[in-house]
């Protein structure tokens, strides 16, 4: 099935559906194909947007009747606060900013999927940029970067709560407790279990977010290939459902981060 496109500067129109799909799935890379520039810059720009909006809200915060921005920020804070209170029972100055950052930043990154598929690639095409993927969380490198950061936080929280030696001992003595000779026998088994647990958490976090966003983006691209009268029929419900998915995945990432950190500071 051929698709019609205005010719992008320096680029022929995609001749087949497969070409269109593959064009929309190619990242803007550095010259030696080692780094996804589009992911990096879009996520950095959205991070700055998030910081700016929340900073503006904090500057204008009043104890009286709140304005709309303050209302919205407090709404977000309340959601995050409820999640932390229900899962994390130790005093920590870092957990709240971490959770807010994860929730709002991941939501903003996911929300890039709401823009029409061709919008930003066309606009950037006029500037000479011919490959662009606009959803950073649909890039597995980005989600792995975030979950690697969460894994470092888990290790950091564990060491802070139990001490480096205490955590090291726990790696070899949990979940199977024993004394004397059996302890030495069980130590490597315990260590393997602990490592699997430690590695499975960030792996599942990142792949869950990536899978959801990649599948969502791909379905939008496939819907874009349909004739115009079918696009609204299928694209409308899918876009509405995708609003739920975007918010849910951001919330689940944040909630699971809080839960993993609470498990990390828990003493056996």
């Amino acid at each position: 099935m051929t698709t019609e496109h205005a010719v992008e500067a320096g680029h022929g129109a995609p001749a087949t559906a497969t070409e269109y799909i593959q064009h929309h799935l190619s990242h803007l890379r550095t010259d030696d194909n080692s780094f996804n520039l589009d992911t990096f810059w879009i996520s950095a720009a959205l991070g700055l947007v998030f910081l700016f909006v929340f900073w503006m809200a904090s500057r204008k915060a009043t104890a009286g009747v709140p304005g709309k921005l303050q209302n919205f920020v407090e709404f977000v804070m309340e959601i995050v606060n409820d999640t932390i209170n229900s899962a994390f029972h130790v005093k920590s100055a870092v957990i709240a900013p971490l959770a807010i950052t994860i929730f709002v930043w991941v939501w903003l990154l996911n929300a890039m999927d709401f823009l029409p598929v061709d919008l930003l690639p066309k606009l950037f095409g006029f500037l000479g940029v011919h490959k662009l993927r606009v959803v950073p969380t649909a890039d597995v490198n980005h989600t792995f970067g975030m979950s690697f950061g969460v894994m470092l936080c888990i290790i950091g929280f564990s060491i802070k709560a139990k001490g480096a030696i205490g955590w090291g001992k726990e790696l070899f003595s949990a979940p199977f407790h024993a004394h004397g000779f059996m302890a030495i026998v069980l130590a490597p088994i315990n260590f393997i279990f602990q490592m699997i647990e430690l590695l499975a958490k960030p792996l599942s976090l990142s792949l869950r977010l990536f899978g959801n966003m990649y599948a969502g983006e791909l379905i939008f691209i496939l819907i874009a290939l349909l004739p115009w009268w079918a696009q609204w029929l299928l694209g409308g419900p899918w876009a509405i459902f995708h609003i739920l998915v975007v918010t849910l995945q951001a919330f689940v990432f944040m909630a699971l981060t809080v839960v993993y950190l609470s498990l990390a500071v828990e003493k056996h």
Partner: protein
Amino acid sequence: MQALIAQVQGMTVLAAAIIIGLGAIGTALGFAILGGKFLEASARQPELMPQLQTKLFVIAGLLDAISMIGVGVALLYTFNNPFLNAIIAAAGK
């Protein structure tokens, strides 16, 4: 050579379909049980409904995970087939 490529493509199509299908069955059953329990619990104790709903969404997000990972793998096979690339690389040598 063409027969080989055709075979790899055919197998890949089946593999992608099975991955997506089985993932969908598991997720559907999981959501069904989860939703049913939530409705029962809400009917028993309506005052707990908000808290249960939060937990409902958290567990829904977890249920989605594996099938989404499967969909990601299946879509990788569909649009950038590594097995096909391996055959083409081997033939090119």
